[in-house]
């Protein structure tokens, strides 16, 4: 069995009386596209910071590609690229200078070929000589991604990389990250855009108050927690509610079901109950519903 890309065992972290992480255990396999989801303050960024050595846990161990992030920090950090959540940059340097400097920090000299390739992939070639202060927010975000990749890390962590990013850039970014994943990089993603996580991640962990409250493949989570829905507009909405539906927005009444075989029975109940069907639509299970369900149960 190959070494996990990330292994987290019993990691706890407190800030004073605030418990940021409460005994987190997690393994991410090599080549996975993994999602780390949770509401604000759930501990996602603390966990990522512990992985990257910015936060020292009170207890537990973390390893990147088998290298302990404390005892063998040099190798652990060589194997990890982090795209931080905040839009931070060094105002003294141009994009190319910054990427050369970042390569040097990782012990890499003469990295221009790879830097050119990253710049081209992120559509930054024409901004290579521009000072960071001159770039738009989206461009700065792309440079952050480039900085995380200069040392070709096998594990890449993206902490809400698309926050405040326009649709075009977001799609371009995901295309690039997907390619990296196809090329064998392990990707760990935190995001508040659940549709992104659903589309990209093969496996997902959900955190709440510093604990993992759900961990499974995306498909299994959708199967286990989310139901299909039938939304109907009725001549007599109150009858729909009496028949087991829940009042939705704009006069719609929603019914949840697990398999399409139940739709016929539901429609028959409405007809027999005299609700008067005007309009109907079917809803697929989605990660947002799973997320809400999991968070409510935890």
């Amino acid at each position, binding site marked *: 069995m190959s070494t996990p890309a990330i292994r987290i065992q019993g990691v706890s972290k407190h*800030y004073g009386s605030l418990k940021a992480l409460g005994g987190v255990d997690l393994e991410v396999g090599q080549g996975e596209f993994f999602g780390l989801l949770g509401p604000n303050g759930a501990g996602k960024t603390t966990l990522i*910071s512990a992985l*990257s*050595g*910015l*936060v*020292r846990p009170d207890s537990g161990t973390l390893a990147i590609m088998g290298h302990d992030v404390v005892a063998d*920090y*040099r*190798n*652990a*950090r*060589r194997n*990890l690229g*982090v795209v*931080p959540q*905040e839009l*931070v*940059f*060094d*105002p*003294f*340097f141009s994009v190319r*200078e910054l990427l050369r*400097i*970042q*390569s*040097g*920090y*990782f*012990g*890499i*000299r*003469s*990295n221009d*070929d*790879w830097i050119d390739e990253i710049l081209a992939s992120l559509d930054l070639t024409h901004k290579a000589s521009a000072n960071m202060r001159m770039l738009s927010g989206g461009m700065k975000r792309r440079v952050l991604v480039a*900085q995380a990749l200069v*040392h*070709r890390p096998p594990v890449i962590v993206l902490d809400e990389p698309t926050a405040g990013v326009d649709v075009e850039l977001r799609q371009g970014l995901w295309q690039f990250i997907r390619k990296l994943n196809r090329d064998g990089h392990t990707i760990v993603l935190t995001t508040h855009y659940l549709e992104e996580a659903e589309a990209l991640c093969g496996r997902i962990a959900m955190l709440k108050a510093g604990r993992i409250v759900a961990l499974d493949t995306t498909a299994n989570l959708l199967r286990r927690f989310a139901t299909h829905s039938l939304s109907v507009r009725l001549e007599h909405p109150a009858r729909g509610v009496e028949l087991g539906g829940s009042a939705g927005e704009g006069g719609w009444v929603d019914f949840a079901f697990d398999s399409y075989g139940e739709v016929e029975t539901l429609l028959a109940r409405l007809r027999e109950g005299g609700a008067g069907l005007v309009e109907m639509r079917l809803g697929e299970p989605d990660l947002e519903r799973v997320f809400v369900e999991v968070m409510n149960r935890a």
Partner: protein
Amino acid sequence: MAAESPLAGFRTLLYKEVLRFWKVSFQTVAAPVLNALLFLLIFSHVLDRHVTVYGEVAYTSFLVPGLVMMSVLQNAFANSSSSLIQSKITGNIIFVLLPPLSYREFYAAYVIASILRGLMVGAGVLAVSAAFVVVPMAHPLWVLGFAVLGGAILGSLGVIAGIWAEKFDQLAAFQNFLIMPLTMLSGVFYSIHSLPRFWQDVSHFNPFFFMIDGFRYGFFGQSDTSPWLSLGVVGLCFVLLAALTLAMLARGYKLRS
């Protein structure tokens, strides 16, 4: 795959720190040189005809090494402290914290860059002063040794202050209420033999006095106290401050929570 070099991380951080101040060299090098020259102009105009030191050394000649060393010390402190607090406040410190750099490499890069800026400004002040004032240099190695050690001490203090301070106001307090008084009261502008006995004794508790006095010995071959004593005190201060700074960095104080 690009070539990897074991010390490349340290060298890159040092290069980045030097490039950072060099890119704004009007502010970080030229301006301090001009400030020191203004001091020289004013004090020499007022005092040169009235004061001699060490018997026959003209006051202006005496003043130049003091101003050079003051510039070395203040700029060494400013370099590491301002770089670190700016990086912390803007958040780009993470680009230095995420790579596989050890805390020793981190310390060495910031302190050496501070020494280099201090030496650059000091050399600038000396070169321009020499155009107007005759300044002998009896023992150049002592000059260089004290300049490097003084720069290293203030560079270390700058690392401590830059890490400790959470806002520019706190850093300014460190600079204005600690560094500046210790520098000004160290004998930059006077020989402590011109002070009353009590203040002469007090001056011996100020490590900056030994930095300036030892440095001045390198120029005139004369000093207020033994240059070996100064070297011992300054060397000990450096060792203690380096140990304190390294301990802070090893613990990740205010950098790795």
